[in-house]
C-alpha cells in the first residue's frame, strides 16, 4: 500500500503570511493526524481529522486550522505566521493493527 505523502517538502514564509501544508493518508484510511516537531519542544499533537470532521485538537491557537476533503486528504493552515511556528510538521495515518504511518514531513521556516 502507498504510504503517507506530504507536500511541500520545504516551505519558507515571511512572518505574518499564511502557510498551507498538505497530506494524503494511506489509501482508504479515513483518519489523519497532524503533529508539530519544533526544536526543543518535541512532538506535539496538533489536529485529528476523521471522516471529514475535526475530532480533536491540541493546545494550539486558532490560527492553526485545517480541513479534510472527501478523499480523506487533509490541509493544515497556519495563519499570521510567527517565527516560533518554524518546525517540522508531520502527518500520520493510523494503519491496521495499531501501527501509525508517518509522512516525511514539511519543514516550515518562517523568516
Amino acid at each position: 500500500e502507498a504510504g503517507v505523502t506530504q507536500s511541500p517538502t520545504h516551505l519558507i514564509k515571511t512572518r505574518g503570511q499564511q502557510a498551507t501544508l498538505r497530506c494524503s493518508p494511506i489509501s482508504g484510511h479515513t483518519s489523519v493526524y497532524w503533529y508539530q516537531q519544533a526544536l526543543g519542544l518535541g512532538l506535539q499533537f496538533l489536529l485529528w481529522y476523521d471522516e471529514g470532521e475535526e475530532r480533536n485538537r491540541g493546545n494550539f491557537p486558532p490560527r492553526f486550522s485545517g480541513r479534510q476533503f472527501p478523499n480523506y486528504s487533509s490541509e493544515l493552515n497556519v495563519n499570521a505566521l510567527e517565527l516560533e511556528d518554524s518546525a517540522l510538521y508531520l502527518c500520520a495515518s493510523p494503519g491496521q493493527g495499531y501501527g501509525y504511518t508517518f509522512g516525511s514531513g514539511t519543514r516550515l521556516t518562517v523568516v
Partner: protein
Amino acid sequence: AQSVTQLDSHVSVSEGTPVLLRCNYSSSYSPSLFWYVQHPNKGLQLLLKYTSAATLVKGINGFEAEFKKSETSFHLTKPSAHMSDAAEYFCVVTKAAGNKLTFGGGTRVLVKP
C-alpha cells in the same frame, strides 16, 4: 490522561555494544506502546509496538522491548549497536487504535566507532 518519560535525552554507545533506551509511561487504562526512530531530516519509522499481546516485543533491525506493567516501563534494547542506529528514538503511548499519540521527549543515540 497519559504521559511518557524517556529517562535519557542522550545515549552514547560504541559500535558492537548493547543499547538500552529507557521509557516509563503513565496511563489510566491499558495502553498501546510504540517505539519510533527518526533519522536526521527524516520522518518517523515504526520500530515495534505493544498491544497487550506478548510482553516481549520484537521489532525491526534487531530491536526489542519488554512491557513491564508493574514498573510501568517499556525499555528498548538492542544487543549490538550499528553505526546506522545513530538517530533519535521516541517512546509513544496511545489509548487505542485511532487515538492520538503521546510522545516522550526523545533519546538521541550516538554510536562511536
